[in-house]
């Protein structure tokens, strides 16, 4: 906008104070109202994501350069339909509005995002926001869409009726942003005249007046009493509680649905506004309805869902391999370069095998995470995700989960990390936790090298009925095992530690929209960066610890380190056997012996708790075939087949291999997953619980497999 903004002359101290201080502005609105698009348009890439203290709700904030050179701290509140109910999101939003959130001053103004195509429902939250102290500015989004649908909104009239500024915006096209900036600066300076009046029935008004006491009867006092009387939580004070309960009883006697009164009063108020400001011309044919008659069709719906999932799966599983191999190769080369150019020694080893390899093991997941989030954001932004949940809800509910758990769980077959991050779309915290806790049972791509090695070593050329490969059947069995256990665990969790009333499914099916490329890029960028920063630090630390475990105490003095490749792998093998890791292997041998494992496999198991695929490289070192071997390397397969126990029996049998695979299906051997669960649940309690129960299950299952197999005469 080209009009210049003349700031009015400063008149008093309060003005001066607000002028100097950085403003804090909160942005609130219904889900799907265009909040994220507006937030991104206002802050660009200057945003950061944190959690509200003590809870898993994410707090996004950014810096917004207002007109006239000032900046504001812009807080993105969770997407809300109301401030009433007692979900975590709603409680947090209330805390922020009242300046009770730790580390956040009360906002100087609130931007209330209102979807013009859905005015009635969006205004409900507004009637509540207006009851709090901070001045409100309404950002009317989707006005372009409303126009196309023949909805005409009298903005001036809306402004007059509500008594707050209303600014039409189209965030993806950056329309209306300057006007918004002006209106917000103005509101923060002068406050706002809000005009929301609605009265309840005689009885209710009498009770409220009595509970307010004779003192002040201002809007804030009234709001507090309403919260006590109609809210889900009773006041802590005994006397007050008795008063409230008595009042509720009296109202209840009058009308069994007495508690609906404020809701209905708000809606009557909204109804009056709508009647005055909204005119709908001849409604155009609804494209969304037409698309949905195919997308959620009884027969085509599930088929299309399967096809989309297959595409996502294929991309993460197969096509992401290319950049992953590149990253892997690059870090491998870097580690070799470190070895080649730095003098041999402990520091070089730490740098190459601890730090460089550690960083590599983090970054190697980036392509999968980025690609998965590309898909998820596309599906979410276009409106398809709600349809997927709509289709799958019936099946997921059988397990006690929400329809929205479907996509994260499916993505976990590629990698649990992006899958766990994708559970954010599940609002109910218990459902979300249950989904997070079972996601690692989906056989991820990191387990494949292990399966491949075991099958190549013991089942490569076996067939059933002449054409069914035993290897393929085994891999399928492992996937099915993971799914079955996940279903059982979800069932148990939802009936024990995560028990709670089945949350109702009342889910919006938003109209289909073309996703906005900028929003998508920003989401992917913030997710990727978050992963690198948060998970990265933990993974790096554990990599270094593992490196130290495998390299101390030293066996060979630094001077006589062998130079040829063959000698080097002999030295490495010797080093590993005498290291802490090797000793740990011996130490845990009695524990893992019932699973059919010896101490050398024990070393593999220990190292694989960092990342599953490490088993392959560790076994290569243990069996002295050089660390560059991969899961199809003939020398490693030979070494595994030839390995002997002290008494001369083969170390591995087909039964040992199956037991090992079963263990890998169920054990939580991935520190990246643990780090991400720590981040997503904002506590160490859940990741520790996850590692313990999964490992216990893995142990039990491998035990049953091995001992049962022996009883049946195998192995």
């Amino acid at each position, binding site marked *: 906008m080209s009009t210049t903004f003349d700031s009015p002359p400063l008149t008093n101290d309060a003005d001066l104070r607000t002028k100097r201080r950085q403003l804090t502005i909160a942005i609130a609105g219904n889900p799907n109202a265009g909040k994220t698009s507006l937030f991104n348009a206002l802050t660009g890439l200057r945003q950061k994501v944190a959690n509200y203290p003590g809870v898993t709700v994410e707090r996004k904030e950014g810096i917004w350069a207002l007109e006239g050179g000032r900046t504001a701290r812009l807080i993105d509140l969770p997407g809300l*339909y*109301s401030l*009433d*109910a*007692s979900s975590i999101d709603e409680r947090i939003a209330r805390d922020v509005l009242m300046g009770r959130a730790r580390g956040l001053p009360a906002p100087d103004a609130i931007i209330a995002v209102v979807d013009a*195509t*859905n005015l*009635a*429902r969006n205004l*409900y939250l507004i009637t509540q926001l207006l009851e709090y102290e901070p001045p409100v500015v309404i950002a009317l989004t989707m006005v372009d869409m409303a126009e196309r649908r023949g909805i005409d909104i009298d903005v001036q009239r809306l402004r007059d009726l509500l008594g707050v500024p209303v600014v039409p915006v189209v965030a993806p096209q950056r329309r209306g942003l300057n006007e918004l900036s002006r209106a917000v600066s103005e509101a923060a300076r002068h406050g706002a005249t809000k005009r929301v009046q609605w009265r309840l029935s005689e009885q209710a008004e009498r009770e409220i007046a009595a509970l307010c006491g004779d003192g002040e009867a201002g809007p804030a006092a009234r709001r507090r009493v309403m919260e006590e009387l109609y809210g*889900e*939580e*009773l006041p802590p004070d005994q006397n007050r509680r008795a008063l409230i*309960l008595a009042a*509720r*009883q009296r109202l*209840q006697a009058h009308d*069994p*649905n007495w*508690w*609906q009164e404020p*809701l*209905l009063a708000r*809606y009557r108020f909204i*109804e009056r506004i709508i009647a005055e400001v909204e005119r709908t011309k001849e409604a155009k044919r609804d494209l*969304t*309805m037409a698309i*949905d*008659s195919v997308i*959620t*069709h*009884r*027969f085509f*719906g*599930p088929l299309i869902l399967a096809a989309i999932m297959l595409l996502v799966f294929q991309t993460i599983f197969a096509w992401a391999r290319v950049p992953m191999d590149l990253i892997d190769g690059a870090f491998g080369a870097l580690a070799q370069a470190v070895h080649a150019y730095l003098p041999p020694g402990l520091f070089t080893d730490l740098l190459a095998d601890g730090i460089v390899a550690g960083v590599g093991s983090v970054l190697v997941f980036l392509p999968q995470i980025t690609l998965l989030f590309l898909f998820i954001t596309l599906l979410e932004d276009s409106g398809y995700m*709600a349809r997927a*949940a*709509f*289709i799958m*809800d*019936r*099946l997921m*509910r059988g397990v006690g989960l929400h*329809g929205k758990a479907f996509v994260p769980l499916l993505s976990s077959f590629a990698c649990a990390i992006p899958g766990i991050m994708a559970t954010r779309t599940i609002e109910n915290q218990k459902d979300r936790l249950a989904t997070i806790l079972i996601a690692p049972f989906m056989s991820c791509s990191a387990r494949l090298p292990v399966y491949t090695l075991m099958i190549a070593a013991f089942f490569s050329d076996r067939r059933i009925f002449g054409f069914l490969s035993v290897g393929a059947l085994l891999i399928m069995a492992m996937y099915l095992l993971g799914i079955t256990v996940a279903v059982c665990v979800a069932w148990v969790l939802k009936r024990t530690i995560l028990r709670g*009333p089945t949350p*109702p*499914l*009342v*889910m*919006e*099916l*938003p*109209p289909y929209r073309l996703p906005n490329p900028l929003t998508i890029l920003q989401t992917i960028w913030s997710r990727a960066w978050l992963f690198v920063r948060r998970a990265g630090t933990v993974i790096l630390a554990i990599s270094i610890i593992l490196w130290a475990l495998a390299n101390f105490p030293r066996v060979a003095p630094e001077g006589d380190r062998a130079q040829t490749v063959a000698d080097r792998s002999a030295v490495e093998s010797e080093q590993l056997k005498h290291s802490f890791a090797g000793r740990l292997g011996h130490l845990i041998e009695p524990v893992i012996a019932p699973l059919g494992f010896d101490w050398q496999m024990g070393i593999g198991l220990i190292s694989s708790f960092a990342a599953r695929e490490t088993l392959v490289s560790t076994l290569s070192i243990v069996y002295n075939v050089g660390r560059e071997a991969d899961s199809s390397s003939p020398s490693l397969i030979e070494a595994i087949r030839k390995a002997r126990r002290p008494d001369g029996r083969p170390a591995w049998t087909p039964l040992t291999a199956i037991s090992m695979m079963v263990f890998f299906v169920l054990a939580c051997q991935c520190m990246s997953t643990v780090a991400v669960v720590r981040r997503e649940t904002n506590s160490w309690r859940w990741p520790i619980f996850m590692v313990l129960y999964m490992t216990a299950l893995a142990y039990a299952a491998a035990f049953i497999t091995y001992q049962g197999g022996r009883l049946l005469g195998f192995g």
Partner: protein
Amino acid sequence: MESRSALTVEAATDSTDPMRRGLRSLAELPIGFSARIVAVNGASHIARRLMEMGFVPGAPVSVVRQAPFGDPLEVRVRSCHLAVRRAEARTIVVGDPQSFIG
């Protein structure tokens, strides 16, 4: 945790009340038909959520379709499409089916 003792009063299920014939639950509304909402019953935390999403007495509502595996229903309240399970739809009382939507 929070006490909702006084709030979770199970309201009478009006849909089976012989005094109010012509009423039925949203779950019984045939696909493609619309009706006006008469009341929202059931536990308060669910009813409140439903009402916040627009299921208020007086609002027109129609059943658009059911999900492929039979359960959540797609319903339309005002201009907004929502998925609700049959269990929740049974707590919403509607009047006579009125018209057929295309």
